[in-house]
């Protein structure tokens, strides 16, 4: 038990304090962006990190799926599943925060802006991933089929995220690191934004590790029951 002390015991509380500070700064320290209606720009501190976590999670799941198909190691299947459920959760959160922003900025929660369209498709695709997993009882077959579907799903994502908004006209603000590589943000806003990005990334990593460990225990129990 003595090895449990030190940083391992402290870091969750550091994370707690860090994100609490980010929340305070996001509302009361950073200024509101001038070209946005009222205070609506503040949601960027939460919306973008969530979208970022979702993107990284889906990428990670795709990589884990490819590794599974190569090495047939169930550990990779656990990783892929955990990353996908994390990605789906954060994509839902990004959708909700985006929708709140849309209500304030554009007057309605949902108007099928290309960004809203593409996130809807994304949610449908990854929800289908879990529908597929639920429909295959055999673990190895489930892992293979889910991995293949995950790869197929991941290649359609760039079409959704980059091509569809190019064809249709979008109201969505420029992504912050835009094509010119310039960051159009007030320096205080930028500090809070980066701090939030870092905090949410660590938090998501924590959730991911819990999910992976929980799934490992679940599977081991299932196997013990079978024996």
């Amino acid at each position: 038990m003595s090895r449990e002390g030190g940083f391992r015991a402290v870091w969750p509380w550091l994370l707690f304090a860090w994100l609490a500070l980010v929340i305070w700064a996001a509302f009361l320290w950073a200024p509101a962006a001038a070209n946005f209606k009222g205070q609506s720009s503040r949601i960027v501190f939460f919306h973008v990190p969530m979208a970022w976590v979702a993107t990284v999670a889906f990428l990670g799941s795709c990589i884990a799926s490819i590794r599974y198909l190569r090495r047939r190691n169930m550990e990779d299947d656990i990783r892929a599943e955990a990353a996908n459920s994390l990605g789906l959760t954060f994509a839902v959160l990004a959708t909700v925060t985006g929708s709140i922003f849309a209500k304030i900025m554009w007057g309605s929660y949902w108007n099928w802006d290309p960004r809203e369209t593409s996130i809807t498709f994304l949610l449908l695709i990854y929800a289908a991933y879990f529908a597929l997993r639920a429909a295959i009882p055999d673990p190895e077959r489930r892992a293979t089929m889910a991995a293949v579907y995950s790869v197929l799903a991941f290649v359609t994502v760039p079409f959704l995220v980059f091509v569809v908004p190019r064809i249709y006209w979008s109201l969505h603000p420029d992504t912050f690191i835009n094509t010119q590589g310039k960051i159009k943000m007030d320096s205080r806003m930028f500090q809070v934004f980066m701090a939030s990005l870092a905090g949410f990334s660590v938090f998501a990593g924590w959730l991911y590790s819990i999910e992976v460990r929980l799934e490992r225990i679940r599977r081991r129990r299932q196997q013990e029951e079978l024996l």
Partner: protein
Amino acid sequence: MWRFLAEAGAVFVKDLRTEFRTRVALNALGLFAVTTLAAVSYTIGPYRIAEADRPFLLSALLWIVIFFASMAGLDRSFVKEEDTQTAPLLRLSASPLVVWAGKLAFNLALLAVLMAILVPLYGMLMGFRPVSLWGFAGILAAGGYTLAVTTTMVAAIIARAMTRGALFSVLSLPLLLPLLIFVIQGTRAAAEGSPEGVMEALRAVISLGGIMTILSVVLFPAVWHE
């Protein structure tokens, strides 16, 4: 190369033969398409839509009919093998890529027949006359190919799962939604006679189809042998 084509051709012809005997897929596909077309034509008709909206709405309706009809039949080629328990035999006698190519050709043939019946009928009943016929044909061909490649792969996946019928559309439609947007854009451009619009959509559709083809070739063996 020639041997590959001959073997894939054999798989294709075998599927075609059983299909001609039973006509399960063609009936499902064709009847679904014609019924939906009748419903659309009856409820909306050719003149209910304002002139300015016609190119877009008619393109969207056409592709929605095609997509949903294909959900009704394009999984047959693999599901049938599992149902009649001929899949293990096929696994032993042919290489995965041969099977994939044969099944893809079969789905392409089904879609071609469907389009050959549906598109002229749709044009007549809904008064849909694209200005650029070649652009329209190009979009139909490229869109049909990408649709067939994607559904072939999904059909191979769901054939080994439970509750296949529902699962097929649940898994296919989200993957196909970007394609749906591109082909509707392209068909609209063809209907309005804008070659740039057609080319832009065609590029997107072909790159999507190309990526799906490459992925299928790489991933199909894993699915087939699981």
